[in-house]
């Protein structure tokens, strides 16, 4: 009776069901429900301390959930380790660049593609012979605009370059679902503009969840916006609808969304 095959096909890329997280007695995430459709770009916004990064840590397996379920393409992933979730097609970036500091840009990206291309823990083949991997890394270097920096250790990169590499490592493995935690944090306005375009390019055809503070980025990038306040999602809709939502304005965005005039003073 139930349209089972159709339901399977339409399984959300990421689905959170009544997800909760507490640290000791402090409840950070309270009963979050969220369904992100395949190919959709969703931005999660909210005031500081709302639990945005915690939510990402729960989805990516960095923390375990205290309650509820998380599904990736219909399959439960809560309770799984980060590498297991990554192997199922979810990759994330970090708010503070989280690179392989002493390795070169090239090696950073190579480490990020090895597993997904099936080379796993191999110690019987040489990296230099892995054409597929090396071609993919060259491609990524071009995409990220880091060709000229390929042999520079990650720790010696400029801030913007590190942010680009951070995203590069995230998307390198070809995961279908990408989580970006404040990708443009700390960047200048011109860098941010370039960066949004980069994000758009490298996540084309994939499902994107991003935490972002820059409203310009949010409204330019997202198909839908989820507003997280005190661990609860109070709105999840198109940018226009969220902008117009009185609850959102009241809780968080009023001042920011009042118009360009408000940000001018």
């Amino acid at each position: 009776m139930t349209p089972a095959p159709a339901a399977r096909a339409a399984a959300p890329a990421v689905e959170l069901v009544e997800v909760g997280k507490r640290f000791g007695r402090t409840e950070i995430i309270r009963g979050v429900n969220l369904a992100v459709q395949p190919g959709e770009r969703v931005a999660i916004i909210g005031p500081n301390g709302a639990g945005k990064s915690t939510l990402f840590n729960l989805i990516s397996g960095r923390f375990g959930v205290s309650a509820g379920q998380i599904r990736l393409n219909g399959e439960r992933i809560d309770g799984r380790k980060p590498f297991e979730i990554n192997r199922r097609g979810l990759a994330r970036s970090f708010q503070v660049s989280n690179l392989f500091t002493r390795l070169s840009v090239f090696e950073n990206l190579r480490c990020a593609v090895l597993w997904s291309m099936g080379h796993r823990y191999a110690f019987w083949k040489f990296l230099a012979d892995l054409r597929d991997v090396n071609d993919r890394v060259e491609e990524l270097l071009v995409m990220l605009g880091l060709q000229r920096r390929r042999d520079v250790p990650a720790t010696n990169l400029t801030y913007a370059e590190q942010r680009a590499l951070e995203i590069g490592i995230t998307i390198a493995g070809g995961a279908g679902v990408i989580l970006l935690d404040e990708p443009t944090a700390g960047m200048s306005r011109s860098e941010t503009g370039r960066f949004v375009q980069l994000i758009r390019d490298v996540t084309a055809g994939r499902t994107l969840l991003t935490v972002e503070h820059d409203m310009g980025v949010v409204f330019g990038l997202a198909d839908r916006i989820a507003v997280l306040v005190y661990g609860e999602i109070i709105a999840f809709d198109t940018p226009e609808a969220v902008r117009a939502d009185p609850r959102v304005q009241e809780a968080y965005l009023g001042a920011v969304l009042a118009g360009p005039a408000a940000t001018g003073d």
Partner: protein
Amino acid sequence: MPSRQSAAHYHFQPWNVGRWLLWSAFALLMLVAPLLWTSSLAHTMLSQMGIAIIVCLAYNMLLGQGGMLSFGHAVYSGLGSYLAVHTLNAVADGRLWLPVSLVPLVGGLAGLFFAALLGWVTTKKAGTTFAMITLGIGELVWSMSLMIPEFFGGEGGITTNRVVGQPWLGISFGPQIQVYYLIAIYCFVCTAAMYAFTRTPLGRILNAVRDNPERVEFVGYDTQRVRYLAFMISGFFAGIAGGLATLNFEIVTAEVVGAARSGAYLLFVFLGGATFFFGPIIGAVLMVIALVLLSELTKAWLLYLGLVFVFMIMYAPGGIASLIMMNLRVALFGRLRRLVGAYLALAAAALVVLIGAGAMIEMLYHLQLNQALGPRMSFLGAPLDAHDVDSWFGAAFVMVTGLALFELVRRQFKRQWDEVQAEIEVEIKRREAL
């Protein structure tokens, strides 16, 4: 675009040619070394160096490449030694047939087996916890050596005779030189294999685990599995070194699994330089020189070693290998000559410090250990009286003067060094812009 890519590759081309040269030179050196230094002491030392190179490289697979600080790696080389000695004795008794030249492989398999067994627990954790567990397991195995004398041979250890069975092509492994060449072959093959390992997917991910274990988990890898695999491979090579040591010394005592041995691996790998592949080779050579020569020269050799270690950690935490590489870079940019004067001054000042400190250390040891001989002694040809204030005052004066000189020279050197580095940076920028 293709031109840019090939340019990037050419950047490393000289190293590929250089690599062949380097490996050939390494093989050649091991081949001719016993012909250049022909004394039996030299052959003994060369044999020990070959063994030490394998074990130090194996240790550095953990320390330098995987960021795993182990305080108990002698367990794997030591147990390799024990399994090898029992195997060799079984061969001698006719209970087993195995060519003597393959006995080190038994040691390797033993190292692998115990690393698989004990490493399963050890590598569950990283960082400080990992270090603590290795320490615990080291103590555990050490205490076992006292509890199971049948296996470990108790106080006297287990002796063996490497001349077993019929000589093959005249090779009986009786003469030291034959054992040396066996060690040299193992050393070359193991070194090449461990170098090859650094260029494989697992080898690279091991570096990534060292740099940032958390991120590795988010690119699909189980860091625990990576550490475990590397630990086993390292245990295998350490075991081979242990097996070779059995053939070389023909005796295995419990100290081969002891904490002092484990500490020596750590200390000398660090001195040699853990950040470069070849660093542990330098460390291994130094280890044998210190253990064989320095210990003959002075009773206070451990104290000197400790001082050198502290000095290195403070001023050159990358070890000798990084000092070499940093100066090589300066040399490649044609600026090494500017530093030669400063280096000579540094060395002279350090020598003065060493003479002053050495005189005091030797007097102290003389008082403690050679009381029966009276207070008079000779240090570098100079007569000293360990009960005489003048001797102490003189030595202290030399040392303090040396220290002051050293500090002055060091500051001057630092200025010059920073200048040269800044120039090199500018030069690199200039070349990039071309």
